[in-house]
């Protein structure tokens, strides 16, 4: 198996795991947002602490999204290369 194919396999798993982590963090993010938006929170200290945590989680999710997007582009590029190579081989079998 050449390096390109190994990387495609690795990228497939990597992208799947990134997606799982983003989904999980997003659930925590949404839960905290719902706390912040609830009318139960009337004091500033709780609001501020929640806001700080929400911003930090959002930053982590955004960073993962960027990594995901860049990795997905690399993945697509590899797939394109492989299919081009296959086409070239079928056109020129010798």
């Amino acid at each position, binding site marked *: *198996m050449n390096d390109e194919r*190994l*990387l495609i*396999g*690795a*990228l497939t*798993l*990597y992208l799947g*795991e*990134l997606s799982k*982590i983003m989904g*999980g*963090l997003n659930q*925590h993010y949404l839960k*905290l947002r719902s*706390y912040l938006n609830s009318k*139960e*929170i*009337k*004091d500033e*200290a*709780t609001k*501020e*602490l*929640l806001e*700080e*945590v929400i911003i*930090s*989680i959002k930053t*982590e999710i955004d*960073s*993962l999204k960027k990594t995901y997007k860049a*990795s997905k582009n690399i993945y697509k590029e590899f797939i394109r290369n492989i299919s081009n190579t296959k086409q070239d081989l079928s056109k020129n079998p010798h």
Partner: protein
Amino acid sequence: MFHTNICNRKKPVFKDNKIYLICYNPPSIYIDIADNLLNKFLLTGFGFYRFIDEWTIEDNDQECKVRAILLYYGLPLIKHKIPGTKIPNLEDLKNSSNKYIYYIAGMYWLLMNLSNVKPPEIKKLLNLTKKVNRRPIKVKELEGQNLIIYPNMSDLLDFYNLIQRARTINIWDYYNWFIRQL
């Protein structure tokens, strides 16, 4: 020397040069030594030194001041708010309109700020709330407060696992895994 307002009674147990751990799981409060073998990970791994504060405890009918880390269901709290910081503290907790949400926000804040702490150690911290084989005491600053909540520890562990994965995930781990399969 011991800080005590009742002299010449039973020998006080708490020492000035020791740091204690107060596990506050309302309605029960237990005390232990913070730097013993079982609890030392809180100081070394978690860096809970910054949460050491002076608390007034009552033990054997004697009132003493001890230097301790107060853990509220595993969340370390300092006594007073430090202006300009978000460090979880008892003052804000008492004044919070929803103590459960303040605790959750505090725990997320703590977990986000930890690094190099392995998930099993987080489990150990959260499990401290279940241990009841320590010495029961009273803490003056906590008396008469209605601070009972019912936190979901598995949610917190799940969050910590995710945040650690987010910070350590690496394409080359997967690549090397593939190579090992060949």
